[in-house]
């Protein structure tokens, strides 16, 4: 069983998987944005490492580089940032993620909230104009991001020309979270390595697709709405890297699907009604808060059902007697 295998995984193995999956978005972002992407990635990595190291010293805990959690957090934040952002913004985001989320709660496997999501949410609140400004870094592409086009209700059509751009991430958006093909590859990797975590990803994507089909935001062909919604912003990135976070994922298998569906609905609702262009990190944080509640409800439901079955068996035995 996949669950039994996961139970034997160490922190290093789990975050090592994430690191392997993150290599491809990193390569793509460097391909598209060259030095601008490299500088953001380098700054995020260095900040996460330094903050984790200093935090470990402060709380008198031995620092393990081999658990890769801080490196993964730094890379995830970097991939959700625009390439031309001022470098102090990712520094603040990574510092917040590590010093406020990771260190005080005892490491990457014990955090109640996904550190990368919290770091990005912090940056989105404090530097809203910069975090969602994708115009700096690439002057040769379309003028605005898909997310802003969708939020404005623009008439969008998928043609043979731009469908490849959308699939390969050749559009305005976060520097490492636009290429859908890469994330399909990551989903296949997750299917091999951590099938139970993939349930939440599937629940998340399916709920987003259904939501987009029922309430299309683009004025054009409504069937294109799910593709556009999935391609916009960091939605696919979050479905692979944030929703599947080991520490915050519910333990029971049905709960993982419910968790993913809940996160997807919140994301789409926030996209339609919220103030931010890409609110997926806020939705993930909100879902994290409900994760323990889901476990409690399921435990009680299971115990209630098992008690009911036992009671029925006892009454049947009594009747036979």
């Amino acid at each position, binding site marked *: 069983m996949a669950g039994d295998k996961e139970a034997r995984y160490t922190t290093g193995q789990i975050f090592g998987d994430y690191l392997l999956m993150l290599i491809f978005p990193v390569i793509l972002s460097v391909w598209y944005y060259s030095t601008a992407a490299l500088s953001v990635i380098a700054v995020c990595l260095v900040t996460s490492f330094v903050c984790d190291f200093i935090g470990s010293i402060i709380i008198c805990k031995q620092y393990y580089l081999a658990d890769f959690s801080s490196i993964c957090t730094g890379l995830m934040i970097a991939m959700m940032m625009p390439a031309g952002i*001022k470098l*102090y913004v990712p520094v*603040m985001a990574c510092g917040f993620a590590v010093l*406020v989320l990771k260190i*005080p709660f005892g490491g990457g496997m014990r955090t109640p909230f996904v550190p990368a999501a919290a770091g990005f949410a*912090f940056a989105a*609140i*404090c*530097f*809203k104009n910069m975090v969602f400004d994708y115009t700096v870094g690439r002057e040769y592409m379309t003028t605005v991001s898909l997310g802003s086009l969708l939020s404005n209700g623009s008439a969008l059509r998928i043609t043979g020309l731009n469908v490849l751009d959308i699939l390969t991430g050749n559009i305005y958006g976060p520097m490492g979270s636009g290429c859908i093909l890469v994330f399909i590859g990551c989903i296949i990797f997750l299917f091999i390595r951590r099938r139970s975590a993939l349930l939440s990803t599937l629940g998340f994507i399916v709920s987003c697709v259904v939501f987009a089909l029922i309430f299309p935001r683009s004025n054009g062909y409504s069937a294109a709405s799910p593709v556009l919604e999935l391609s916009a912003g960091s939605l696919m990135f979050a479905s692979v890297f944030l929703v599947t976070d080991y520490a915050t994922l519910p333990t029971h298998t049905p709960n993982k699907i419910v968790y993913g569906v809940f996160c997807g609905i919140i994301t789409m609702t926030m996209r339609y009604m919220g103030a931010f262009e890409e609110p997926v990190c806020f939705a993930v944080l909100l879902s994290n808060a409900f994760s323990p509640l889901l476990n409690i409800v399921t435990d009680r439901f299971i115990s209630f059902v098992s008690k009911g079955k036992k009671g029925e068996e006892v009454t049947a035995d009594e009747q036979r007697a």
Partner: protein
Amino acid sequence: MNSGHKSLGSAFARGIFLNNPILIQCAGLCPVIAGTATLNDALFISGELLVNLLITCIIASALLKKVPRFIRVVIYLVFGSAVSCGALYVLSRFNFVNVGLDLKILIPVVAVNSLTAVRAETYAVKHTVKSSVYDALAAGVGASLVIIAVGALREIIGSGSIAGIQLNTAFTMDGMSLPFGCLITLGFLAAILKMMIVSSQRQPREKSNEEQPTEIELSFEPELPEEADIGIEDYDDIETLLASTDEFLRSLTGGGRQ
């Protein structure tokens, strides 16, 4: 009657550091979060809180000892409202304090803050007037210091200014002006205070351990806490007893989760 604090120094040591009403007890957080976006706001709120706390504690200690609790709480609210009315009058009559419009709406929040009720109910009604004054002053000054520090930090980081004077900061973080910025700042301040308290308590303990001979260390027997008081008659079987004993020993040695 319990005399409480023996001196102003011990009262201040407890009120500002060991038992800080905001950072340790987490009391009266609402006015702190609502009214500390700038230093001027923080100064005004802290002044109002101090006056409110002092008046309420003096009256609670002097007059309200025989009054039933449910009536006392209403009286605290009335005094809080009176102080708030006075603060609003000062703001409208004398324009010497440069505070924001939001603060004028939030000033009545101080009237219903939990800090006043907690200090008056847990301390003032059980102690002498002098001791209650010491306690109110210590708690008020402790809370005021935190409020002023939070207000200053939030204004510098969030708006790039201090008391309305613009600073040449490299960048500003708008989120620090929001309530969540206050909670984060309070969290960091609480962590720093806790670290200071723990390190100050560790030093004399280490010194005393160094001075004591080895024989005394070996004969040291820790006192059982009330929660962990185990009696053999409470247990039906030996397995439960062994499990609980093992858990108790682990709690004493600080073992278990690393």
